[in-house]
């Protein structure tokens, strides 16, 4: 792989695609990798202020005596989830350190929650972003005490008299060890240790001592009067945790389909020995020779959010309807804050089916040529809950139009001027696509191009390349 190809691969995986400037001036990998990491802890994303939350918290709601008014208020507050979603996507589009967002998306799927509370979603998102490139132990502890997680996995109901095992099960199955590395008895014992972990009416973590079972527990072969923090520490002591996270990161950054066990083992060892330093693990991976093996090119399907953000970073887009950002996520199957279940988005080939592929291939025309896509979206949980009124449409779906966007082509077009008509498609394909395409494909593409003038030619070549199956990969 040439240095330019290596740069392209790195920025595709560690971010949302390489900029034309970086592509034209490739730098040594070590230098690029250093530049991926933000020098300071990221700032918080705040859509919902503490004041707004205070007005909408369960405590404030209880004081409202008018039922209808309360329902309307609750509904309006839940709708704020959309604003939070858009704020985060905008942060991705503008990110100076896209790796931070890319890792935040990873953890967002890893620690999947589904709440009807956008303030809780925001708190968890900020826990995730703060620790996304930090220490996995800190991240695990913060997430485990976040109200979104306590609510979603029912630790709020986990009390000494009636232990609820939901969190104890998932913290092992999904967050640390993976299936098959613990027993049902371990789940029961861990659930006892987490009793009393809860959040209060303001969404603050509280420990209810009276509801905590402080008796002896036997967990993963060890005996003690463990509490929740002890359980998390014991889980972090397991080498299996480092292996499980490394496997998942490998799939996320290297290859959807093929996992090289030797390389994953190296990652796990490194991760464990660094006491779960996420940044160190990523540096190890991004500077490994094997990361730049030819077989890695095009071995990942772009997740819908990566596709969407990649477009917006390539060509500034102004949406006439801001909800387009969430519509695209929904229609392509990655609606942030609404994972399909506690396991998050399965990813890889799962992103692709006949309808999602055809929609993806039509998307460039919709976004950049205002050729609207008119589609029905399946309802979200919130939408299901809101359809109470008798006269409301009984169609299961929400009809939306995707498109109606104004793209700013000026700087992009300027970068591609001066190429000969015959050489432009190949040069641009090398930039936009992760794998080489044949001359016969490029010739085919040429037949569909707009050749009236150079600017329209550049635009049409771009749109046609983005409409190719290869563009769905990185």
């Amino acid at each position: 792989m040439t240095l330019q190809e290596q740069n392209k691969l790195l920025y595709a995986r560690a971010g949302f695609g390489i900029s034309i400037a970086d592509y034209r001036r490739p730098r040594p990998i070590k230098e690029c990798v250093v530049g991926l990491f933000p020098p300071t802890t990221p700032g918080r994303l705040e859509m919902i202020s503490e004041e707004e939350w205070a007005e909408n918290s369960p405590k404030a709601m209880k004081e409202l005596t008018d039922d209808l008014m309360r329902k309307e208020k609750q509904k309006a507050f839940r709708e704020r989830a959309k604003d939070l979603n858009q704020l985060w996507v905008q942060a991705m589009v503008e990110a100076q350190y896209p790796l931070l967002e890319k890792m935040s998306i990873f953890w967002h799927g890893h620690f999947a929650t589904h709440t009807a509370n956008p303030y809780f979603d925001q708190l968890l998102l900020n826990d995730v972003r703060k620790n996304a490139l930090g220490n996995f132990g800190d991240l695990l502890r913060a997430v485990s005490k976040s109200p979104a997680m306590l609510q979603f996995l029912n630790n709020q109901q986990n009390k000494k008299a009636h232990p609820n095992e939901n969190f104890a099960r998932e913290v092992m199955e999904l967050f640390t060890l993976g299936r098959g590395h613990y027993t049902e008895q371990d789940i029961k014992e861990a659930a006892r240790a987490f009793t009393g972990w809860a959040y209060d009416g303001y969404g603050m973590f509280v420990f209810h001592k009276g509801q905590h079972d402080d008796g002896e527990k036997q967990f993963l072969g060890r005996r003690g009067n463990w509490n929740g923090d002890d359980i998390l520490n014991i889980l972090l002591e397991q080498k299996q945790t480092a292996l499980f996270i490394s496997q998942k990161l490998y799939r996320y950054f290297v290859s959807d389909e093929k996992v090289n066990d030797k390389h994953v083992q190296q990652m796990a060892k490194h991760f464990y020995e660094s006491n779960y330093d996420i940044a160190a693990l990523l540096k190890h991976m991004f500077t490994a020779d094997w990361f730049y093996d030819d077989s890695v090119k095009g071995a990942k399907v772009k997740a819908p959010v990566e596709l969407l953000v990649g477009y917006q970073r390539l060509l500034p887009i102004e949406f006439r309807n801001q909800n387009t950002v969430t519509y695209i996520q929904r229609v392509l199957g990655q609606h942030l804050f609404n994972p399909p279940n506690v396991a998050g988005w399965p990813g890889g080939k799962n992103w692709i089916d006949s309808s999602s592929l055809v929609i993806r291939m039509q998307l460039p025309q919709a976004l950049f040529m205002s050729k609207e896509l008119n589609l029905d979206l399946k309802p979200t949980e919130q939408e299901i809950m809101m359809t109470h009124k008798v006269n409301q449409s009984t169609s299961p779906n929400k009809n939306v139009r995707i498109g109606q966007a104004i793209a700013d082509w000026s700087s992009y077009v300027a970068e591609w001027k001066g190429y000969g008509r015959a050489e432009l498609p190949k040069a641009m394909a090398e930039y936009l696509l992760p794998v080489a395409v044949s001359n016969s494909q490029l010739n085919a593409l040429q037949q569909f191009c707009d050749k009236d003038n150079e600017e329209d030619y550049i635009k049409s070549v771009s749109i046609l390349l983005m409409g190719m199956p290869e563009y769905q990969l990185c």
Partner: protein
Amino acid sequence: MSVSRRRFLEMSSLATASMFVPKFLKAFESKPVNLPGHKVLVVVQLSGGNDGLNTVIPYRNDIYYKNRPVIGIKREEALSLNDEVGLNPMMKGIKALYDKGYVSIVNGVGYAEPNRSHFRSMDIWQSGSAADELVTSGWLGRYLDNACTDCDKHNAFAIEVDDTLSLAMKGKQRNAIAVQDINQFHNAAGNPYFGKLIQTHEQEHDAQLAGYLYRTLSETISAADYVYQQNKIYTASQTYPNTAIGKHMKMIGNLINAGAETRVYYVSHSSFDTHVDQKNRQNKLFTELDDSLSALVADLQCSGRFNDVMIMTFSEFGRRVTQNASNGTDHGTANNMFFISGGLKKAGLYNPLPDLGNLDQGDIKYSIDFKQVYATVLDKWMSIVPKEILAKSYDTMSFI
């Protein structure tokens, strides 16, 4: 708009991509299609959690009326099935079919440790898994994986009538297609640029992801064309209602009666989340459903296909036995399922209604695991070994 830009846009709506689809992908389209005895499954998803107790009504049960003083359906209003049980008054068409022996109702269907979230419970039903399992493929998708050993050209083997695909229809290897508007889908997939890409695509990276995408694209183009052609063959013998579900049923009727090779159709009807003012909403939804199903059945009877078609309804959960303060009901657990076909083995009420005197914290206890019902459909209707699809063996039931 400049002339050139318009022309560029037009390129994508002229001609059809199937003109460019390589011959080997077209084999499917030219095969003789109308196979007698070719069994078809139509799954109707009642989204939002349909209230089963006001669907199949235990009108001799005091507990029912005690718990539902306002929304309980009176005996004289219900459509009597026997001395104990009646159907929702809006289900006149289904009642008529019931009387002719075309309906089987399975009661108390659910699963252990029921989940009351719409999303999670739907996930459990669609994936065909237990409440504590996380499965990322759907039961009908896995049916495709297993049934379709030789159908690279059979991407129209299962169709969801929608713009996007439900988990139920996604397999590990194969997926159904999602088509709501046949012409729109045909136009989109028929973009001649896509066809040209397929034609010029070299097979060298077929083992890789790019190959998978190209295969998916070919199959989609081929399926879109197939469905488009099939849809032109038959003209509906009935007038279908002009509602979303009516239009969807009409499309299904058209394709079945044309002799399309599609084995599974999947359609959703919503929204049944009746927390408030349940009666009016459920009445409206049932009227739409009843009219559409009646039209479909009549259409199938006209063409002699009703014996080959099984219509199955389900919902992610039933609702609580006690009405709430808003004359609605909240999320519950076990529910009934309807099977409608000319080819049932045992019609009528398959099993007794749930015991309202023996509830689990106000909720109906399930008596039949929904996966056992799936197993029955797979084994006896779709003629496939259910174990591969459901990971476990279940005793099959006798209604099919």
